[in-house]
């Protein structure tokens, strides 16, 4: 039951869970920050917006930190390849994230409007650039990346930063930004009243159809236009992790055939589209429908991430310059001992974290209004 093969599959699922938790929680934090300068016209309105996520964004960001840490722990080769290969892109994500801790905490500590305005744009960058770049990253996961391992299993990247910005990857970046902003607009609408609420409603109305259209184009592009490599021979699924123990052809039977091999996987894209469509329909209606709309938007994001994961399976990173160097969940994992320890730690702490996070959200929940911000002007962000 806890054999190496099973642990490798379990960890593929766990990484998926962490990635989904990141997308759901940071998704709306990013979205709220993207909307900040547009939806908030006055200083008080902007403080309302900031404080909808101000007390909880930090815990949400840990899902990103944990995603990095968990990949480091269970797929060290993937961590090494992604972070060093996409050096400039990763640093741009990092630099953009720099704007957030200081942006939230420092903005309202000085009353000069120029200071506050500057931080608002900082928060905008911190909420906008990461989803765009992470979307571009996902696009490149589907396209494959140019990298190879040498005989010491040292990874070499064979492309450049500009090479990441292909039309398909840029489309993925746009879709990702639309998704986080849509998710954030629903959240903002749910948590606020008055002018901010009304403008968030407009954002939901506009963003929903754009997101669905972008997704449709991207999906058709994947099924009709992208090559998918295929493994032709590989070592046992419990063999030591070494990418060279397999042979890969660069062009296999394609993405559609891959889904058709196990059609139940199509549940994922269906969930993605229908979740977002329903969120859009419900999100335009009255306040009572908003929790449900947000739930559907979350399910939509789950569907989209599952689609990418199912589509790539068993690949984690596809190499275009040396297909054999591609990494799969069978040949890029940590040792059995490490996977087991990490498994037990996760089994114990995941529920604990979810429980206290839920408690904190419950305590801090409630609509934010201009009056409530003015009342606690010296303690709120």
């Amino acid at each position, binding site marked *: 039951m806890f054999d190496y093969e099973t642990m490798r599959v379990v960890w593929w699922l766990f990484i998926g869970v962490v990635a989904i938790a990141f997308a759901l929680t940071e998704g709306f934090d990013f979205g709220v920050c993207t909307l900040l300068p547009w939806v908030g016209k006055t200083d008080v309105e902007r403080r309302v917006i900031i404080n909808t996520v101000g007390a909880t964004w930090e815990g949400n960001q840990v899902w990103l930190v944990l995603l990095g840490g968990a990949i480091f722990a269970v797929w*060290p080769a993937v961590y090494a390849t992604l972070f060093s290969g996409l050096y400039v892109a990763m640093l741009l994500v990092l630099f953009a994230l720099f704007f957030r801790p200081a942006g939230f905490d420092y903005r309202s500590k000085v009353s000069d409007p120029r200071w506050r305005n500057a931080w608002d744009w900082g928060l905008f960058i911190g909420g906008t650039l990461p989803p765009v770049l992470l979307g571009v990253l996902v696009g490149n996961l589907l396209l494959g990346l140019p990298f190879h391992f040498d005989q010491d299993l040292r990874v070499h990247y064979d492309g450049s930063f500009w090479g990441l910005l292909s039309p398909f990857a840029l489309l993925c970046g746009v879709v990702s930004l639309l998704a986080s902003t849509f998710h954030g607009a629903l959240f903002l609408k749910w948590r606020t009243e008055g002018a901010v609420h009304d403008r968030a409603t407009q954002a939901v109305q506009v963003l929903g159809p754009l997101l669905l259209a972008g997704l449709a184009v991207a999906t058709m592009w994947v099924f009709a236009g992208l090559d998918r490599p295929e493994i032709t021979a590989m070592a046992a699924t419990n063999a030591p992790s070494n990418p060279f123990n397999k042979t890969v052809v660069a062009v296999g039977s394609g993405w559609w055939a891959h889904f058709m091999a196990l059609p139940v996987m199509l549940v994922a894209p269906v969930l993605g589209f229908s979740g977002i469509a329903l969120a859009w329909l419900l999100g335009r209606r009255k306040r009572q429908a908003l929790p449900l709309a947000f739930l559907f938007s979350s399910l939509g994001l789950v569907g989209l991430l599952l689609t990418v994961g199912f589509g790539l399976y068993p690949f984690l990173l596809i190499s275009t310059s040396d297909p054999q160097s591609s990494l799969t969940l069978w040949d890029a994992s940590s040792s059995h001992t490490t996977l087991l320890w990490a498994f037990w730690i996760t089994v114990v702490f995941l529920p604990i974290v979810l429980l206290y996070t839920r408690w904190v959200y419950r305590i801090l929940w409630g609509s934010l209004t201009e009056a409530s911000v003015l009342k606690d002007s010296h303690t709120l962000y």
Partner: protein
Amino acid sequence: MFGDDVVMLSRMQFGLTALYHFLFVPLTLGMTFILGIMESVYVMTGKEVYKDMTKYWGKLFGINFAMGVTTGLTLEFQFGTNWAYYSHYVGDIFGPLLASEGWMAFFLESTFVGLFFFGWDKLTKVQHLVVTWLLAVGTSLSALWILIANGWMQYPVGAEFNYETLRMEMTSFAAVILNPVAQVKFVHTVAAGYVTGSMFVLGISSWYLLNNRDIGFARRSFSIASAFGLASVLSVIVLGDESGYTQGETQKAKLAAIEAEWQTEEAPASFTLFGFPNQAEQRTDYAVKIPYLLGLIATRSVNEEVKGLKELREDNLVRIKGGMQAYGELQKLRGGDHSVATQQAFAEHKADLGYGLLLKKYTEKVVDADAATIAKAADDALPKVAPLFWTFRIMVACGFTMLFVFALSFYYCATRVADQKRWLLRMAFWSIPLPWIAAETGWFVAEFGRQPWTISGILPTHLSVSSLSSGQLWFSIGGFALFYTVLLVIELYLMVKYVRIGPSSLHTGRYCHEQVSYGSH
């Protein structure tokens, strides 16, 4: 294989970003505990001033915490971006420790920090107190896990090289966690954080007392800081001494360099209090020595030797030759020769593989190294003496100065005359930078002292870097320099601004800028 400039720039970037991160970490560690203590007093006594203290010092903590979060993210990214081969080679051990830090520490501190600031009116007194303590526990747990990871880099136990995956793999999680180096480092570092928080509160409170403002508030803060600071600085010194003992067992080269012990002395070795290390001639000029002390610190005995650098270099020569054998056998294994004889030969020498890798700097093949090359590698395997000798002494001097300041503050506080001793208040104020100097030099001793390794005896630093170009490194270093400089200016501006406003920033109507008459309450 890589230009030396990529290795040099990667080290420079890591050093600068880690030292910069470490400007904020110790204060976070200390402040969360002090906030916990202040709020506990509030809950027990019900006196509003302790609530105000928790809130006001909490504001300063928040300004600092934001920077800690910002700069901590860099470090997690950086293992992958700049140390990709390291990440691949030891991710099996290092990765789960970082992930555990995420599960057990980052979530705890990051989730409850919001509730600490915004939960005052939404929680009962006791609930909020629990939140504050969870925040404190979270920050200290974070230190625990990262120091277990760092302890493993200093003294790698519970792991083995696997020739099929070409990396280190965990053999015993328990051994990694119970690593003696990690345990000692953890307590020493966390206590140093508590000292930092205490000195910060003590110094700023002294400044209020010197300016005759917010007396009641400042006096109470002063007394908590002096008591907690005294206890903490004593722990730091005792645990620092314990570090010396474990180093004597586990990190002999670092200890010998710190002490400028060029040659093995007859036991018990004397402790060099002061002097001028002379690397070229392998001696210490104008040395002032205390007999027996080093032997006692490092071996807890009077008859065990403390090995000197010259003898350690001889050991290195033997291990490098063993490493060449190991590397040769590894090549055979990789070539497909999995015979029992080869496996046995590899197993016999595999502990020295890392020493063989030291030669990669000079020859790609390793096994063809001549005597001169081996000699150069043996020299490389020892850290430089002077930087370690000096930074260590600066750290210790800061530690003892702070012990003096805290002891006097505590004494005069206990006799209730501290706010009349203006010289004491001035000294406490000007001592504010000391814990930072001690922490940064201490970090330098630990990390520079490990060179030329990232993982002692296992993986040399020059092999650990990513396959990058120096242009990419200049891009990132430029970015860090820009962001970190601007952010530091902003942080210091806000810190000074809020220190000047003081507890008046809480807008309770009780403090100096809000009142006509100054005074305590």
